[in-house]
């Protein structure tokens, strides 16, 4: 597998303040890689170092291909129109005016609108289109859906998936767990400038501290009790509820118990800890 972006032992200081502490990660070509972290964790600084917007103190960054960047906070002159901005960026990047890009981002119908008159969603779409002008191989998206309504988020997520299908490597920095869970193949969680987790979203939710919840509705209500692999937490809307570290062991044990007691199972619900719960655990661990 080819590496799209590789970061090794990156260190960045602002004065005496160590913001990025010796972090390493890599994103495979064609995957969506998420950088997660609370505000001030170092996500934007890390991205800006990779994008070449900031100098860094030590480490090694390798980027294999042309890059396109959508910044967290980005702007254009208030009175420039969508079309003028688009053509200006096309001309300076020496690429043909790809009006299909405007069409696909729903910008053609507002091409004569001035930047100041655009909604947050339209501005985000314009900046994403500008980031794609040079047919970049690697896209950096910093909080791509911040401030967007549901419709805008759904649209952008769809576009991001299409870009992945087209073979682009996409690095997303976000603190929106649902977005990361929906889109990313691999993630790294930053905390205080360090990487505290690096793996797939599933690895994150199936590991770590949180327990999963199993709920069983049976013909005869199961008596309040703890089992070997699970702990009783209560009856919620007729569902006998336990929490467990091991879903398979706990489920097997509960089903065997029901069979031994000639109890008929009507419904079973299994709820894994969400990415958000895992993230909160990591973020608050050691505080």
């Amino acid at each position, binding site marked *: 597998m080819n590496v799209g972006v590789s970061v090794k032992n990156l260190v960045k200081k602002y004065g005496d303040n160590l913001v990025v502490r010796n972090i390493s990660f890599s994103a495979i070509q064609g995957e969506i890689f998420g950088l997660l972290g609370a505000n001030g964790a170092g996500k934007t600084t890390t991205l800006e170092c990779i994008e070449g917007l900031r100098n860094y103190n030590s480490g090694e960054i390798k980027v294999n291909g042309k890059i396109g960047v959508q910044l967290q906070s*980005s702007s254009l002159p208030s009175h420039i129109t969508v079309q003028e901005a688009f053509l200006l960026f096309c001309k300076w*990047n020496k690429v043909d005016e790809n009006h299909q890009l405007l069409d696909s981002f729903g910008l053609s119908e507002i091409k004569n609108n*001035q930047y100041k008159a655009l909604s947050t969603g339209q501005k985000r779409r314009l900046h994403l289109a500008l*980031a794609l002008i040079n047919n970049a191989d690697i896209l950096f998206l910093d909080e791509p859906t911040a401030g967007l309504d549901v419709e805008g988020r759904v649209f952008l997520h769809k576009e991001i998936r299409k870009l992945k299908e087209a073979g682009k490597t996409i690095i997303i920095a976000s603190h929106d767990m649902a977005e990361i869970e929906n889109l990313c193949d691999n993630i790294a969680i930053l905390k205080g400038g360090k990487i505290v987790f690096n793996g797939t979203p599933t690895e994150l939710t199936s590991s770590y501290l949180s327990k999963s919840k199993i709920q069983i509705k049976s013909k005869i209500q199961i008596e309040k009790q703890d089992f070997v692999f699970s702990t009783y937490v209560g009856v919620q809307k007729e569902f006998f509820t336990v929490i467990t570290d091991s879903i398979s062991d706990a489920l097997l044990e509960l089903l065997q118990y029901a069979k031994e007691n000639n109890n008929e199972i009507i419904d079973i619900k299994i709820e894994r800890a969400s990415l958000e719960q895992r993230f909160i655990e990591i973020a608050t661990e050691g505080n």
Partner: protein
Amino acid sequence: MNEFLYGVGVQWKIDLRNRGVFITYYIVPLLFFGFMGGIFSSINPMAKNTLIQSMTIFGITMGSFLGTPAPLVELYRSDIIKAYKVGGIPLWMAAVNNYISATIHLFITSTIMLIIAPIAFKAKIPENIGLYFLSLALFIVVSVSIGTTLGLLIKNTSRLTMFSQLLFLPSLMLSGIMFSTDLLPTFLENSGKIFPATWGFKLMSSSIFDFSYFWPLIIMLCISTALWIFLLSKVGKE
């Protein structure tokens, strides 16, 4: 070259759409010209001899000190500059485009005054029209260069307004365009010599090329150009 010219064109159109800039490049100078031109020429018939020059100096000084710096503060002190940087647009582009666009706008305003003044106020047309346009061009580029320096030096619009007025008001009062500098105390008359308006007015009112009016403007152009190039390189490093 194509991308550069396109950028200049876009900036020119942006300036027309930007109400604040449009007002300082066109509306106020031309209203002032219409209003004061009538008053000056009726109070003092001799004023008709230099009406075109004085009104032009007013318009250019206003446009370049109050209008030219504003888009630069918006561009270089906001996230626009980051968007340009990641989008492959060089940082000097915005300042140079703004400079050229301002020069063209102020040249248009000056030409409108030159055409209307003789018809509306029977103002005297400059004797040596070639020298007039040469002097006009020099005065515009010097003033826009100072305006560009202000726009790159000052980091917010409220401060910019204060510093721009600090240059604009003395330029009007001490340059001789409102009343003769002979009426001023020596100290103020000499103070007026640090403003390009003083030398621009003398050069544009002269029917023969006088080097003593020319070189102060050239020095001001060199200093201000060096300054804004230096400031631009600093912005790039930030």
